[in-house]
């Protein structure tokens, strides 16, 4: 049995922290010892910022020093922060990271692994599904891994609030490990049931170390503000008064952009941060260095983000569960100074949560469609081939395939770029659906618990700790006075104006769908001179501002409100399409033959342009919104319009044109219309729509 070198461990801690007199916190040393000496399995339940990374870095280093292999760490969020990386470097622990966005570094990492120069490899669980990662990186380390670290281990449990499909692989791997490979599972948030489940997965020899959860320096408060205008106004007036910098969480990418735009317009130095932000690292650094007042972020700003002096965490919308809320708000109040954790609760929160809950799993019908197609395929199907066969959104197809492929005896498997049906019998396995139902129920309960939290007048921290089965004895009162909930009328009016001026770009499509459009006989790339220009829409179908008016006009009044016409006019003023359009045409419809032409004519009257019909709707087809993926939508448009050749006699035909439609969905209708017009010699085509269905 390798001896655990106590003085070396303490020495590493002191080098790592840079504090020559520091000592281990309770549990830290026992944890390291258990892993190094006994090659044991350990679950650490400690709040974020407690120092879990010191446990695995020091354990890794000690294992390496007695000649054992490297450590492999799985974490959903690899934003190991600067201070952690610096600590590892000081202890000369050589850490390497593999993420989906650093493929260009894989060669170097692979080379380092080959030369045994990596002590700990950090990987996101979904990499395990990536054959390139498996072939190039994992295969080089798999036979030597001495320590498996599972960060955010609660994600393993399908009893968990945060069950992640990709963790099912980790669960299977952890369950199949023989004795001799040490396992360190860490989490900040595991309630009793999740802990039981983890104990079952990680085996009877699992040791558990659990610490308190309360954060005494955090002042929690909840404020109900159904209207977005009120919340925007409150943020604009409150955030400047708060000490230090912080995070404002939103539920959607679009809202993070929207809130950031608004606050910047109000003179606050904030940035939007979400999974699609190109400069995430720079943004994190800017917040760490207090160069910005705050980041307006989705949950993409991850659990690993550690800034001890964060002054506030404000939620613009309520998360769907109390545990998520605890994790997110717990990013503040880690250091000495007091911090605010404020939850604003909007009208839309519940809808968004319901949407997440409903969309989390495929339906039985979706699963049987996907399996049916794969069963009848001779040699498997690629994703585009599958999308051409089943009328489901591509994202839904991918989700179904992913969840199914992660089952222990998966009914589907990917080989190269094709999906195949495996010989595992599926129909007689109700466990998948039992789990789906259980998780759906659980999430509904969590949503209700969140609503209870929102309604609290006091005792917020107690509520959170209790919800997480925390072992805390005593909970201190909030360290700060509550914030005012008042806003001025003037700010509220400005917020309302801001919300009405959200012009959304309609990006042009540059390629025909996979397999082309046979009736129009087109495929591949669309020549640039046949494409539409980037268009504009007033807003989103469900934005609560314009969407409601469009719905009313289309389905109740059979006529669009004057306010929409006015809004289009002022949008064109802001937009300034270039080259400027000289005439107006529109998308024809057999279902509502007069609705859009009437809108286009009224727009012409206010703009002083002339209107001309240019296209004819031919044949009967399904409503575009019933087509669920881009290939189906494109096919539904194939041959749907013909060109009215008489319009070529119109003198302005060769000039740029404004192409009007009411609702944009996939953009195929506009793409085909623009192509028809351009290929007959029309000038640039600028699409204009009232609202768009996609979130861009």
């Amino acid at each position, binding site marked *: *049995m390798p001896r655990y070198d106590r003085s070396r461990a303490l020495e590493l801690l002191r080098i790592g922290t840079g504090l020559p007199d520091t000592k281990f916190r309770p549990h830290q040393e026992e944890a390291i010892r258990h892993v190094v000496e*006994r*090659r044991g399995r350990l679950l650490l339940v400690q709040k974020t910022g407690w120092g879990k990374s010191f446990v695995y870095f020091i354990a890794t280093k000690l294992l390496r020093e007695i000649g*054992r*292999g490297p450590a*492999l760490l799985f974490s959903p969020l690899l934003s190991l922060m600067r201070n952690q990386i610096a600590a590892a470097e000081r202890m000369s622990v050589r850490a390497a990271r593999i993420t989906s966005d650093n493929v260009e570094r894989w060669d170097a990492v692979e080379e380092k*692994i*080959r030369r045994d120069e990596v002590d700990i490899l950090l990987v996101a669980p979904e990499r395990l599904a990536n*054959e390139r990662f*498996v*072939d190039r990186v*994992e*295969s*080089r*380390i*798999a*036979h*030597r*891994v*001495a320590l*498996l670290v599972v960060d955010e281990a609660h994600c393993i449990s399908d009893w968990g609030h945060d069950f992640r499909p990709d963790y099912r*692989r980790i669960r*299977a*791997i*952890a*369950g*199949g*490990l*023989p*004795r*001799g*490979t040490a396992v360190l599972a860490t989490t900040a948030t595991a309630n009793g049931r999740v802990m039981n489940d983890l104990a079952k997965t990680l085996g009877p020899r699992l040791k558990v170390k659990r610490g308190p959860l309360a954060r005494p320096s955090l002042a929690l408060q909840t404020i109900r503000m159904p209207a977005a205008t009120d919340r925007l106004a409150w943020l604009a007036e409150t955030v400047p008064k708060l000490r230090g910098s912080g995070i404002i969480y939103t539920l959607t990418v679009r809202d993070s952009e929207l809130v950031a735009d608004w606050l910047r317009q109000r003179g606050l130095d904030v940035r939007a941060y979400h999974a699609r932000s190109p400069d995430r690292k720079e943004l994190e650094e800017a917040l760490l260095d207090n160069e910005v007042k705050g980041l307006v972020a989705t949950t993409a700003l991850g659990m690993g983000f550690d800034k001890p002096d964060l002054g506030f965490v404000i939620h613009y919308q309520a998360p769907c569960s109390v545990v998520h809320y605890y994790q997110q708000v717990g990013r503040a109040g880690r250091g000495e100074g007091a911090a605010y954790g404020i939850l604003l609760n909007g009208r839309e929160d519940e809808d968004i949560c319901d949407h997440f809950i409903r969309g989390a799993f495929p339906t039985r019908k979706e699963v049987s469609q996907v399996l049916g197609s794969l*069963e009848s*395929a*001779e*040699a*498997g199907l690629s994703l585009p081939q599958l999308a051409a066969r089943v009328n489901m959104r591509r994202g839904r197809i991918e989700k179904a395939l992913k969840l199914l*492929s992660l*089952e*222990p*005896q*998966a009914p589907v*498997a990917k*080989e190269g770029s094709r999906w*195949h*049906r*495996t*010989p*595992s*019998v599926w129909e007689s396995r109700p466990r998948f659906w039992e789990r789906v139902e259980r998780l759906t129920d659980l999430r509904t309960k969590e949503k209700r618990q969140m609503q209870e939290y929102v309604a609290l007048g006091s005792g917020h921290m107690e509520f959170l700790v209790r919800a997480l089965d925390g072992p805390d004895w005593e909970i201190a009162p909030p360290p700060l006075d509550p914030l005012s909930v008042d806003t001025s009328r003037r700010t509220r009016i400005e917020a309302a104006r801001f919300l009405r001026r959200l012009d959304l770009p309609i990006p042009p499509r540059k390629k025909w769908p996979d397999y082309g459009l046979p009736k129009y006989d087109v495929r591949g790339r669309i020549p640039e001179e046949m494409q539409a220009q980037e268009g504009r829409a007033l807003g989103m179908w469900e934005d609560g501002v314009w969407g409601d008016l469009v719905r009313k006009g289309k389905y109740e009044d059979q006529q669009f409100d004057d306010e929409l016409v006015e809004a289009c006019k002022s949008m064109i003023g802001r937009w300034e399409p270039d080259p400027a359009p000289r005439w107006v045409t529109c998308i024809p419809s057999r279902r509502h033959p007069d609705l859009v032409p009437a809108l286009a004519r009224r727009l012409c009257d206010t703009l002083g342009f002339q209107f001309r019909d240019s296209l004819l709707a031919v044949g009967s087809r399904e409503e575009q919104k019933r087509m669920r993926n881009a290939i189906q939508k494109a096919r539904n448009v194939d041959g749907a319009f013909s060109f009215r050749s008489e319009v070529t006699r119109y003198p302005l035909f060769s000039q740029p044109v404004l192409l009007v439609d009411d609702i944009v969905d996939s953009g195929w209708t506009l793409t085909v219309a623009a192509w028809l017009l351009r290929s007959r010699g029309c000038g640039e085509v600028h699409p204009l729509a009232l609202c768009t269905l996609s979130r861009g």
Partner: protein
Amino acid sequence: MTHELTPDSQAILLLTAPLLVGGGGERPAGLEVKRKPLTLREYNSLAAELQQRGLAPAALLNDRFPIDIARCSRLDPRRIDRLLGRGYALARALERWEKRGIWVLTRADAQYPRLLRERMGRNRPPVLYGCGNRALLDRGGLAVVGSRAVADDVAVFAEEVGALCASSGVPIVSGGAKGVDQAAMRGATDAGGCAVGILANNLARAVLVRANRDAIMQGRLVLVSPYDPAARFFVGHAMARNRLIYGLADSALVVNSDLGRGGTWTGAMEQLGKLNYVPVNVRNRGRTSQGLVGLMEHGAKPWPDPRTPDELRRVMAGHPHDHRQRSGGRRPAAEPATDSQGNLFPGRGASGHVAAARESVATPTDRLLIALKGEMSRDEIAESLGLSKSHVQRAYLRPCLERGWVARTIPDKPSSVNQRFFLTDRGRDHLRAPGVHEPADTRQ
């Protein structure tokens, strides 16, 4: 987890399996020499050492495993330690196999196929990977072997044999390769019968092939391989695989073969020679082939070509799993092929078939003792058995000399050119002992 590995099986996999992580199927990177899995011989020496101490393989997984065991079996203890340190690779490989419905059986598992345990002993593969109904592995059946490239009529023959087996409730055991193998297996499964496919490579891909899927799902097909499910094709693998095909069957039918070369020939010759797990038959209908004639000359019988389920069952009943243990005399003789039209071997009379049938059930040593008349040189013995001289020396003469059943006429000069061999009294006693397959006509 649908099936949990016992600690013994975990240890066996860690020690002997390549545990390929990565779809490439190449030698896994990081699997340098010091982490090379044990060969069968190496593993056997380690297992013997464990057994002597009354330990099971799982003992190696304990915190303080007796590292001197490795030393005693002349293995590098550091290599053993490194192999056992592949826990993550094992868990990951299991996870990947299970995703495709692939299970693992090791020598330590009670469900390990009985026929292989009995016939191959210590030479049986330490690990079997498979997909589908495991119970089929203990049902015996008809081994159908042949080459990849075959003429249409030969493929049709194999398919018909498969279909006939299906209607008789006899499983087909074959190699899953293109040509004869697939024709026979498809013939069986398409007709609602059962098949056992023993693969030399790429099990993980084979389970996705549509032609296999339905039969696997209905429990009528099992695919097995002694090689990692991600392993690519390798000639040596195909050879060792052939042994398992015979090993899991009750009787074998060679549909076509090259003469003197190729996997089918070598595999059948091994059976006719030292292994002799099952009787070997050769196709006896349609166009002839030099390879089949060659096999006949080495003791293979013409396939009686049964046409009805009853006929097939009778043929199979002549070849129960444990044919070695039964007396050859009481065993119902296989139906001799007639000289009617279409007979492949008109030169051989019915009696020749019977003799061949009887010979083929005897062990190599017994066959030598039977063939030895008076004093014979090695060349004469080889000729009378229809085998090569070196093979006779290795598999026939040497064991008989060691047991004292046969003696040399010039004992002082074993390699003398005038050396001849004769039957000793001990050899004669052995031949008379019950259970030895001595045809009555040779006793005179």
